């Protein structure tokens, strides 16, 4: 790493947090994972990657055979950046390490939205970081197509520690699709992903992330979002495939007036999966708004679905919605919605519902001629299809494809 961009203070704080357990999620022994990975060669033409790899990436919405569908691509396998390219004037796509060398001023953004000493995972990302992506739209630039990034784990037993930095400069518009995946199904490993988002005045950033891990993977993303005046941040997160343990609680801070944040997440927990996933919005400026919608399905795993809205000033408005569907006798869904108003005049609300599919709904569909299985499939498909306002049609299609792929396995 270029020492010039590195803060000594950050490193010291990370050192002190090296053993600090996370406040949520089960503990993970970091020493059980390797920090050393073999290098993977750079690919000028990512369509030449092995078919199996491309297919795994495609399942997370990352398209490598048609570059015209994307305004930029970043691919990282283990610790190696194997491709990085911006396909539109005014957009930057590169490794975050390279970006720190190119733009020394980026140190002002490094560990500002996420605390370096939050826990041992943020500490490890500081002490053993290997790349991650940097995506930026210059002021007023509107990305024509989504930019895609894929963080891929190929080496068995590896800890991948990435730090991503995304900046939508004033008046810009960015749509990002991130896919995270592992190579074979028996893959064991740890993914730590720090993501810091900066949505400047009047900018719009849509971030769609599809996780496609493996049943023995441990995953600890740590995300922070800072939104300035009139900025919009829309996050869509899907994790429909088995993962051993996943804990994340992205936090958006609406620091500018009329900032808007929406988090949508769709989670499916198979037997053996533990997911502790939430979204938090801190409404710290007048007129800011937040909406958190989560859909959780268990087919035997455990999902803790959290949400936290904090109204620090007035007027602000926020709504939390959490719905959980239990499709198995073994599964568990624990919804924990939290509303925190600190001043008079905040408008915060929530609704949560967890249960099985209502028999009445199945029978209603059956009365229209659907078989019982068709009725259940229609309800589950509908449950997973979250309406996302402001999502470009291409991203909507990617999300729908992810739902379609998982539907068969689910039922």
């Amino acid at each position: 790493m270029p020492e010039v961009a590195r803060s000594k203070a950050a490193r010291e704080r990370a050192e002190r947090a090296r053993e600090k357990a996370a406040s949520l999620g089960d503990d993970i022994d970091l020493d059980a994972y390797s920090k050393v990975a073999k290098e993977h060669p750079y690919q000028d033409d990512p369509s030449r990657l092995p078919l199996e790899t491309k297919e795994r990436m495609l399942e997370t919405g990352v398209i490598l055979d048609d570059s015209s569908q994307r305004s930029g691509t970043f691919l990282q396998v283990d610790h190696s950046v194997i491709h990085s390219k911006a396909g539109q004037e005014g957009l930057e796509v590169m490794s975050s390490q390279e970006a720190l060398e190119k733009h020394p001023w980026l140190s002002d953004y490094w560990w500002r939205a996420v605390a370096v000493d939050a826990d041992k995972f943020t500490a490890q990302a500081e002490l053993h970081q290997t790349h991650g992506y940097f995506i930026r739209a210059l002021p007023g630039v509107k990305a024509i197509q989504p930019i895609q990034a894929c963080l891929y784990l190929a080496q068995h037993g590896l800890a991948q520690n990435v730090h991503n930095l995304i900046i939508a400069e004033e008046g810009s518009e960015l749509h990002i699709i991130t896919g995270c995946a592992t190579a074979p199904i028996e893959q064991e490993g740890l993914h730590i992903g720090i993501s810091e988002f900066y949505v400047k005045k009047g900018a719009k950033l849509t971030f769609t992330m599809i996780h496609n891990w493996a049943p023995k993977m441990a995953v600890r993303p740590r995300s922070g979002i800072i939104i300035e005046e009139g900025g919009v941040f829309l996050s869509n997160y899907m994790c429909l495939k088995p993962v051993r343990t996943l804990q994340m609680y992205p936090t958006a801070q609406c620091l500018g007036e009329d900032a808007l944040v929406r988090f949508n997440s769709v989670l499916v927990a198979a037997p053996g999966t533990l997911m502790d996933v939430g979204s938090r919005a801190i409404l710290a400026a007048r007129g800011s708004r937040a909406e958190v919608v989560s859909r959780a399905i268990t087919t035997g795993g455990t999902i803790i679905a959290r949400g936290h809205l904090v109204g620090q000033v007035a007027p602000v408005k926020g709504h939390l919605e959490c719905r959980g569907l239990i499709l198995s006798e073994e599964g568990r869904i624990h919804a924990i919605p939290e509303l925190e108003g600190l001043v008079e005049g905040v408008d915060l609300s929530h609704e949560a519902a967890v249960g099985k599919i209502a028999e009445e709904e199945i029978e209603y569909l059956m009365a229209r001629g659907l078989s019982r299985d068709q009725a259940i499939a229609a309800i589950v498909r509908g449950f997973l299809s979250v309406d996302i306002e402001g999502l470009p049609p291409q991203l909507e299609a990617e999300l729908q494809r992810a739902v379609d792929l998982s539907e068969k396995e689910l039922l």
Partner: protein
Amino acid sequence: MLEIEGLSVEVEGKGIVHDISVNVDIGETLVLFGPNGSGKTTLLMAIMGFPRYRVTKGRIVFKGQDITHLPVDERARMGIGILFQRPPVVRGVKMREMVRACLGEREDGYVIDEMAQRLNLVDLLDREVNYGFSGGEVKRSELLQLMAQSPEFILLDEPDSGVDLVNISLVGEMINELLQEDRMRSRTKSGLIITHTGHILDYVNADRACVLLYGGIWCRGNPRQILSSIKTHGYEGCAVCQK
């Protein structure tokens, strides 16, 4: 088309319908009057085959086949459709998908929009089924689904309840169309309408009527005459009348 023979139905162990026998012929519409709690909805639900409504005696024959123990979806596929009085909200499932499912193999996007337009429901096609619908919208949504399903035999559970004056004539018009009441001859569709107030008869033609009281058929006759008598004497009048 439909023959109900000595049918008794219980709900959660409690007998609601007792030894009812009634027939509906091809092209015929039967109206069933009765106060709240008389067993009208229970009878309809049992005909449709909802498991909560358990047949303890008798049988249901549809198009010559004993359907007493067939599941709901098979009855629907045989040609029985139902307009629910209070259908459930189905979150996540859009009206358009629901109508498409009702169309089955006759699926045709153009037809959906055309039918929705006639029922003033175009704006609801992309909404979740029954979520936040007004009383009139619920009824029109039910009719849209039935139009797509095009059943031969239609069970209508209180089609006039919760519908304002603006909507009721449209609802009536569509029911007449579904039941081919606009045809003078060669009707092939049949219906069983249950109503508490009888308002729907201002808009829909019915051929015969029965009064259901205390879970049994109390009297049979001309729909308008029976309705007129109920309006004059109330269901209390029916109760004291000779069975």
